[in-house]
């Protein structure tokens, strides 16, 4: 995986509803490489590569979401602090005491009460989602209004840390790594000329509004417009793979390869796509893992697979520790494994006969 690109994508401040900076970066990278590139009405970025010989056998949609968790400025207090509303399922103990940035460039610290001033109950529970304040260093409303406005958005401060063992950490890495992998795939298809020999028309959809979804995802609009024959959803697969967590709640194992799920709590993945993906990994020695249960956390696939008359869908998960915090951790080997598997959608097999994935 192109970690230099990942770092740039991770640094973009783009929570749900404000994905444009990431979209612009993606556009710069891939516009010269695709047959066409466009935005739909919600802001989903759609890039197409068609087979150059013959009629496409089918239409395959690949998705990765552009947005990350973050917050909106809800109000500016008389004392110069900012109250925020959260975008996405963030645990407040990953926010309190941490630096955040606003789209205007302002930097602040999420206020936390000193522990000696907390009541017994406050000590034992994480801060209330609706009660978070950001400290900018101003003591009056007017000073703050100069640098921040109502409705401004913000995220964790951009960071990128290299740990040992191929692990990297930073905000938004789980989702942005999936974006990077699709861009890598587009680049490889062009560089190796796979579009001369591949069978299917590929729609790369970089989606919006994933992190705030309750019933509908931004991806639904793209799926409805495209009505692909198949869909592959890429996203972070949450990990809590450490001591003290019981087996069934550990999620994906970082370093354990692509997470390929037969089902999660909202989607039963297409059984033949699931079997094909597992078989392809076995054949080519690509590391993969199953989730610990078949009722794990839902993905964008939950609505995509029920769009229109139904779209057979597969989910490929990138194990991500500390998901939805300012320091998500992924392993480069897992990302590379997903990259390898995706190429089997376009590469012919060793005997030159057919593709490994989805015959």
């Amino acid at each position, binding site marked *: 995986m192109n970690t230099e690109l990942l770092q740039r994508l991770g640094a973009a401040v783009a929570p749900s509803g404000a994905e444009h900076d990431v979209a612009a970066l993606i556009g710069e990278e891939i516009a010269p490489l695709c047959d066409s590139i466009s935005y739909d009405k919600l802001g989903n970025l759609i890039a197409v590569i068609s087979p150059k010989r013959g009629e496409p056998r089918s239409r395959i949609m690949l998705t990765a979401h552009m947005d990350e968790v973050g917050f909106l400025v809800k109000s500016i207090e008389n004392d110069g602090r900012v109250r925020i509303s959260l975008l996405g399922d963030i645990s407040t103990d990953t926010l309190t005491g941490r630096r955040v940035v606003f789209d205007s460039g302002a930097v602040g610290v999420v206020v936390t009460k000193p522990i000696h001033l907390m009541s017994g109950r406050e000590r034992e529970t994480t801060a209330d989602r609706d009660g978070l304040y950001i400290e900018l260093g101003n003591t009056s409303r007017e000073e703050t209004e100069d640098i921040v406005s109502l409705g401004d958005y913000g995220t964790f401060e951009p960071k990128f840390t290299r740990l040992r063992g191929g692990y990297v950490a930073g905000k938004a890495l789980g989702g942005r790594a999936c974006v990077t992998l699709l861009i890598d795939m587009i680049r490889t298809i062009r560089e190796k000329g796979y579009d001369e020999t591949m069978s299917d028309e590929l729609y790369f959809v970089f989606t919006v509004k994933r992190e705030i979804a309750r019933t509908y995802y931004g991806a639904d609009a793209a799926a409805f417009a495209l009505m692909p024959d198949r869909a592959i959803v890429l996203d972070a697969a949450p990990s809590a793979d450490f001591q003290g967590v019981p087996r069934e709640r550990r999620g994906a194992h970082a370093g354990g390869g692509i997470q390929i799920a*037969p089902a999660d709590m909202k989607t039963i993945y297409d059984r033949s796509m699931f079997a094909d993906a597992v078989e392809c990994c076995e054949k080519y020695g690509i590391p993969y893992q199953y989730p610990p*249960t*078949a*009722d794990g956390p839902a993905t964008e696939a939950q609505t995509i697979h029920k769009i229109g008359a139904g779209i057979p869908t597969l989910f490929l998960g990138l194990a991500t520790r500390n998901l939805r915090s300012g320091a998500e951790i992924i392993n480069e080997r897992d990302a590379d494994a997903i990259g390898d598997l995706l190429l089997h959608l376009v590469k012919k097999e060793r005997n030159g006969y057919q593709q490994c994935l989805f015959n």
Partner: protein
Amino acid sequence: MFVQLKKFMMADGVSGDEKNVSAVIAAEIAPYVDEVYSDAMGNLIALKKGRGENPKKLMLAAHMDEIGFMVNYIDDRGYLRVSKMGGIMFNAAAYAEVVFASGLKGVLVPEPTVPASDYKSANVYVDIGAKNKKDAERRVKIGDTCRLSPSLTKLLNGRVYGRPIDDRIGCLMLFEAAKSAKRFENDTYFVFTVQEEVGVRGAKTSAFAIMPDYAVAVDIGGSGDIPGCKPFAVNLGEGIAIKLKDSMVISHKTMVDLMKKLADDNKVPYQFEILEKGGTDTGVMQQAGGGCIAGALSVPTRYGHTGVETIDMNDVTGGVRILAALCETKLA
């Protein structure tokens, strides 16, 4: 009908893995319709074209999937861990025989120190008698589904018990209607939906593809005639229940009135059902595309989602008559 029902029940089809039961139903219904096909999700659609001018589209739906389990982990000693597919009650499934599509049998049991009120996926497992992990992996893999062993047995007074009555009884009723209707005035789609038990998923996509004008779901309902139950105005043996409401739908008045009329015309006894908890394919069909006139028939059922679901076959025959009469009625 007992024999036919049993045939449908013996075929396996846990949510998401319905191909076997789909094949059985497809073979049975094919002689009575014009076209039989499956869609991308696996919904089975049997279409009988209507006669006359501009026939309306009538969609009859019964879900062919059943609740069951999916294997998600095989431990070192060859025990299997499973996730629920649909509304399994572990108290009803504990210490029971389960069976895989391959015919492999196992027993679903809770870990020994867990109190009965705490049974859940994390503390039950399936024992197939394997010697170790490798031995188990020769017979099952992650993603395989299994279900409590099927059965159908007669009780007194035309009552029967077994599983999965939910919703093979609905599938049976659709089949019997296709077989017994004297004519088909409308383009009638007999749809055997998938993945109802995990969130009414197959009905959504099949209804979108068909865009019906009228839709009727057939599923099991509840009953209010057992000791200690909450008051509920439906009883076994008092006729098929016309659904007024469940948690996902308020039935369309036009459809309710039509069903009442057909029941009265055919001297079929009926009752009315209001289900406060629980949804069916009905609501999802009603909202498909531009919407349609939707309603449902419910078979009064005791002990739903257990190994001993119990119904009265007299209620069923009445329901079949109403469905057939619906097929015979030119819808406006």
